[in-house]
């Protein structure tokens, strides 16, 4: 085994150079987990390529050695998708960080996967453009990682998720071949393979180049902060706004416990700590239209029970509101040593009852819950603060998480809106899909990765639901493709 590993390390060093191949235990330790620290696994090696050819060489080296590989961006993912769940080599793409082209006239950019999300918008801003998907981790997360997870963010409500903004991809397939899918002009002539790869959590190949659509910066932006006595009335306001036909850029709810954590942290924005919840509403577009829309939103918030509705007076105040919203997860670090950030989606009209049910679940398990979420999309993020050193509490966190997901699914929802399935939720896929549904997904996987060497151990349940009926079945990630 040691000789085998030494040979693998040697071929990886040949592929990317000594300084871009990490093999020492203390180096590998950093890559044992991503943003989900509950599921850790040590890789055999980590490589940091700079070019597509190096990625292809790494993939070929892995194949020759008979080991699997895992694409990874900045490691900010929250579902364990970038972890070497079954060993293998982590291909860390953060050094592939060049913007290769930026075409303002045709409103697209070509980037390497390691370009940081916010950096792309910064580069596009002088041209009056931006990259619309904006996950809360946008200061650190990479475009490649966003492609893998089909990342969203607060502005998904109006602008869509990553899949709506990716026009083309370069992909190193699991056999080491390089293929180009789509392109800046869009409208592929055959199957929408770009659409299939986005959100596939790095299981269909390693993305080495991304062509993204850039969006014009709006002429005017208004950000309102509605203050509500409790979360339920804030949810009512969201329903009213959606029904009114308005399409805000963002509709975000922050609950009292989160407000308290934020206001006690460096992200403090002057949010009212006596509020049950605040609703952050962002409207953008033509100045003449936005002013009227803001007035309408004010009315709808008041009708739903808001005690007051503030409007950001300038860009600085708007930034402060958003810093509070996007820094919420960081602020929660003050509450407990560990934080479990859940992610599920429900029909928007079900938000009030689901939130009450989520609170009841956490109360029943004696857990500390806080909520900050994309209310306009029905995308919940129940956050549970805990201490993993307490095995009993950890078990209750896991149990409550499962109950929360089941409650969301029973309400017509799904188990992930933007974090992906990864290792975290693979065994909950059966809440939504039966064997036939998952087999259909496996057909796609088999077309790209018939040997299951690309990021195995993700998305698909470890066991088949029909195992009793089918003794040959050994789990979705074990049955060889025929």
């Amino acid at each position: 085994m040691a000789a085998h590993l030494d040979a693998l390390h040697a071929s990886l060093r040949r592929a990317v150079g000594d300084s871009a191949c990490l093999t020492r235990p203390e180096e590998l330790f950093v890559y044992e987990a991503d943003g989900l620290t509950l599921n850790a696994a040590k890789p055999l090696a980590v490589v940091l390529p700079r070019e597509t050819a190096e990625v292809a060489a790494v993939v070929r080296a892995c194949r020759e050695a008979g080991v699997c590989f895992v694409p990874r961006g900045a490691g900010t993912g929250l579902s364990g998708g970038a972890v070497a769940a079954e060993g293998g080599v982590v291909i860390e793409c953060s050094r592939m960080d060049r913007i290769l082209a930026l075409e303002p006239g045709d409103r697209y950019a070509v980037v390497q996967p390691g370009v940081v999300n916010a950096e792309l918008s910064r580069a596009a801003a002088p041209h009056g453009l931006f990259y619309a998907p904006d996950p809360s981790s946008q200061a650190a997360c990479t475009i490649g990682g966003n492609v893998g997870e089909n990342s969203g963010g607060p502005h998904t409500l109006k602008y869509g998720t990553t899949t709506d903004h990716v026009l083309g991809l370069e992909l190193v397939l699991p056999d080491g071949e390089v293929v180009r899918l789509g392109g800046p002009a869009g409208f592929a002539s055959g199957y929408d393979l770009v659409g299939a790869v986005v959100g596939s959590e790095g299981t269909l190949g390693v993305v080495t180049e991304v062509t993204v659509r850039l969006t014009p910066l709006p002429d005017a932006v208004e950000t309102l902060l509605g203050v509500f006595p409790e979360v339920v009335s804030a949810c009512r306001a969201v329903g009213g706004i959606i029904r009114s036909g308005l399409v805000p850029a963002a509709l975000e709810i922050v609950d009292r416990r989160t407000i308290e954590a934020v206001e006690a942290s460096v992200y403090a924005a002057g949010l009212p700590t006596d509020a049950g919840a605040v609703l952050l509403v962002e409207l953008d577009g033509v100045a003449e239209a936005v002013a009227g829309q803001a007035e309408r939103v004010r009315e709808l918030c008041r009708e739903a029970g808001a005690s007051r509705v503030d409007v950001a007076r300038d860009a600085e105040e708007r930034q402060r509101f958003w810093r509070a919203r996007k820094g919420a997860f960081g602020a929660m670090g003050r509450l407990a040593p560990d934080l479990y950030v859940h992610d599920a989606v429900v029909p928007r009209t079900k938000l009030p009852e689901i939130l009450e049910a989520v609170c009841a679940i956490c109360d029943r398990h004696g857990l500390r819950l806080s909520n900050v979420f994309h209310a306009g999309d029905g995308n919940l993020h129940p956050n549970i603060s805990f201490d993993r050193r307490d095995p009993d509490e950890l078990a209750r966190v896991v149990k409550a998480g499962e109950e929360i997901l089941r409650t969301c699914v029973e309400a017509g929802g799904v188990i992930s809106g933007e974090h992906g399935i990864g290792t975290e939720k693979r065994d909950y896929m059966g809440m939504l899909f039966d064997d036939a549904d998952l087999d259909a997904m496996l057909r796609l996987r088999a077309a790209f990765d018939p040997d299951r060497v690309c990021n195995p151990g993700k998305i698909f349940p470890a066991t088949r639901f029909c195992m009793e009926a089918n003794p040959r079945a050994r789990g979705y990630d074990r049955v060889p493709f025929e």
Partner: protein
Amino acid sequence: MSLDDASVAALRAEVGEGALAAQAPVELDGRRIAWTLCTADAAALGRALRVLGERGLGAVVRGGGTRSGFGNPPRRADLVLSTRGFAELHEIDVDEGVAHLGAGVALAEVERALAGSGWELPLGAAGEDSTVGGGLAAAAVDPRRAAPRSAVLGLTVVLASGEVTHCGGRVVKNVTGYDLAKLHVGGHGSLGVIASAWLRLRPVAERVESWRVEEPSAPRALEAARRPSARAALFEGGTGSPPRLLVELAGDAAAVAVDAAWLRETCGARAAGPGELDDAFAAAARVDPVDALRVRIAHLPTRLAKLTGGIEAAGGRWAALPAHGLCWAHFPLPGGAGEARVDEILAATRAAAREGAGRWRLEAAPLRARRGRDVFGDPDAALPLMRALKARFDPAAVLNPGRFAGAL
């Protein structure tokens, strides 16, 4: 090719006597397909697909038939699988702005059901018979709706292996597992038969105005099409006709007013009739496949002028959606025109697509111009992957055999 008695009996055993009929033959690419299978039962359709696979038969999947002229000639066409049986309008949720629709429901029927609800469909109809499933399978584009893929929240799909499968869901945001809906939208029924869809509806605009601009330059047309409230813009010209731009502004009344003023003052725009843009697009989309070719070219928006120049030089007229980088070129092909003229037109099309850094496809043409050519355009680098997908989803090539890209 047709169905033998044993196949008819085997299929009827699965779907029932009345669901397989030989009453109204369907003409397709010179074939007369006598049998049509139409059922409201997805599981029964699945069983029928298994029978077809076991017997080595091929089926043409069909919705309203409004776009069935597009595709390569089928390798086999033993019967038509009509999705019109999936005619249930399952649910319209006006509070959520989503709808669950059977694939065979006519888009016009959905529009009627949505009237007064404050919501409208995200799919454009090519005619009164256009269906939900057909529009999705064809990834149908119209001036107001260029991205049907974004409107799909979830699908129920019957696979060639017989399974009735689900992907996505009913909520507006979802990354639970692979996004298989992306493969079926625009897959022309070659990977599975869409039985129903959850769609995200669009709010009805507060105000809609139509404007016409005579003889704008291509850059000006693009600028107009990119105005914030420009919901649709059709730019057309060629073969001696001066170019003309039709713009539909929609949305918040204040935003529409701002853009209307810009159109008047910057482009000298005049008010157009409410149906003018639809009529122009219908004319651009309509081509008699007996004596003309229609090609669609996806291109970079700023390359439109070069591209249309090439089309005009080859004797074509064109209609473009500037903001979306889509251009349709029409070339007359009189009965006497031979292979050489078709080659000449396609060479000009390729050159235009190269100028536009995009891709072309032959959307309508007489059979003689399509035989031996791939109407989906030049071979795609990803064709091996597409072939692998087809092999995994439909190994017996039951669904629309030969009709998709690369003759899959």
